[in-house]
């Protein structure tokens, strides 16, 4: 493998989050190193998605802090996170239903747009040039994900598996340094899962993107991740490389206790 796991880029300290009476996360700490694939696993409702939502500022934790490349955030917001190079996909696909695939991916380029509204209104030099540049970049992503044939299809009309892929594409179009994936393979058939696995590994390998991955399929998790965090009822019950986690008695009992 060409990639080399590096320093800690993302460090979460004592994060607690609750909704009314429901404690979604209690005092969670863990770190993510550069270029690694870090998995978060746990039974349904364990707080995995909430964890990702805290990382990129969609949810505001009541306690705790996020240290991103040495910079301390007690209040992250989604826009700041995006600027800092964090992008993500969603458990329940959150594509822009009224737009086609190209436009969905083009939204991922938004932070890099420099032309202003007036230039755009007249399709004026810089606006037009930029549009072409970004289109070329988006086409690279399209080629990478092998979705050339659906370029111009409105995403609402695509089958589920392809929507998931476009969701990934939109995140990749941002050229993120940290990519958060919330169950990217849920509901897919074996073949689609294999494709998705390949894409994830290729992204990690070719672009050196750090990946935080939530996934229920244990075989996949154990196979592709470098380190695994295990959550249960909002608490961290395990953390380490796949083998260590597999043999952790707490993890085993949590999984046996749950309905999986």
């Amino acid at each position, binding site marked *: 493998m060409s990639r080399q796991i590096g320093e800690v880029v993302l460090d979460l300290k004592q994060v607690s989050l609750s*909704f009314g009476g429901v404690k979604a996360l209690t005092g969670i700490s863990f770190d993510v190193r550069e270029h690694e694939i870090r998995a978060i696993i746990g039974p349904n409702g364990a707080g995995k*998605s909430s964890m990702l*939502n805290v990382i990129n500022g*969609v*949810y505001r934790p009541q306690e705790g802090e996020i240290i991103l490349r040495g910079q301390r955030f007690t209040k992250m917001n989604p826009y700041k996170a995006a600027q800092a190079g964090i992008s993500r996909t*969603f*458990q*329940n696909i*959150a594509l822009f239903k009224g737009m086609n695939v190209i436009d969905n991916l083009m939204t991922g380029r938004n932070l890099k747009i420099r032309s202003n509204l007036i230039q755009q209104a007249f399709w004026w030099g810089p606006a037009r040039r930029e549009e072409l540049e970004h289109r070329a970049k988006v086409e690279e992503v399209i080629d990478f994900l092998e979705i050339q044939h659906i370029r111009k299809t409105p995403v609402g009309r695509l089958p589920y598996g392809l929507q998931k892929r476009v969701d990934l594409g939109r995140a990749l179009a941002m050229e993120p340094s940290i990519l958060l994936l919330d169950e990217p393979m849920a509901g897919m058939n074996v073949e689609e899962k294999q494709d998705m696995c390949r894409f994830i590994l290729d992204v990690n390998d070719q672009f050196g993107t750090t990946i935080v991955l939530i996934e229920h399929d244990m075989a996949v998790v154990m196979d592709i991740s470098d380190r695994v965090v295990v959550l249960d009822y909002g608490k961290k019950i395990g953390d380490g490389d796949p083998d260590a986690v597999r043999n952790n008695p707490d993890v085993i009992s949590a999984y046996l206790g749950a309905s999986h």
Partner: protein
Amino acid sequence: MGFFLETLIGGLMAGMLYSLVALGFVLIFKASGVFNFAQGAMVLFAALAMARFAEWIPGWFGLEGSYLGTAAAFVVAGALMFVVAWLIERLVLRHLVNQEGATLLMATLGIAYVLEGVGSSLFGSSIYTIDVGMPKDPVFLFEGTFAGGLLINKEDFIAALIAAVLVGLLTLFFQKTTTGRALRAVADDHQAAQSIGIPLNRIWVIVWCVAGLVALVAGVIWGSKLGVQFSLSTVALRALPVVILGGLTSVPGAIIGGLIIGVGEKLSEVYIGPMVGGGIEIWFAYVLALVFLLFRPQGLFGEKIIDRV
């Protein structure tokens, strides 16, 4: 002090009527997700029906001068509102299930036009009066406590009383009866309600009937105060700030919101109006509601919801 209290009480009494109309909105919105812009047209339609039937029925049956005629007119107008509710469900709502909010809103505007058109073709479009024997003379209260006492308009007082009783009844209906509970179930989740065997269409007819009845009462009260004329259909616009203040789905919100808006309007009209040339009560309620929304987007009684992703 006496003057301030008078204004305040006047505001509360007007507010009670707003609560009543707002309740019509809330009922329909809760049960069918429809923001009913036709509420105003329904008030106008009901008031027109009432005014004309009160004129015609005594003539047909020789009941001149008796309260029986007025009562009969009220019943007939009420029955007519039921028919209207049934037609709306039949012809419009059932074909628009699961459409977006904006589409439904537009549909109710369409309904409003139709109601206005039908109303004036059937009942004519001049100005009519409704006389249900509301006392018109003012009374003085607390003459011992304040110099000059408090001047209260009896008509307003009775109107507020009727509105309050109706609001109370509706709340009871909503909280305590089986139908009311079914209504709430529908409001919470259409599909789930349907799957446990609650007939959606019937529920819709019921809420629209109730809204029709509310419109009739509001129409009679306002109509007897101001005369039945086209401008009655704008009372709904006056009640809108109430629903955003109180929250679209909250019954207590509609009641308290109505009182707040009523009082706010009256106080602003009396104390701020003269400074800026008057006529401000129409937008003041909106601005009040708006400012409030900026601080509490979920309305008075709504719960704060964090989107799940």
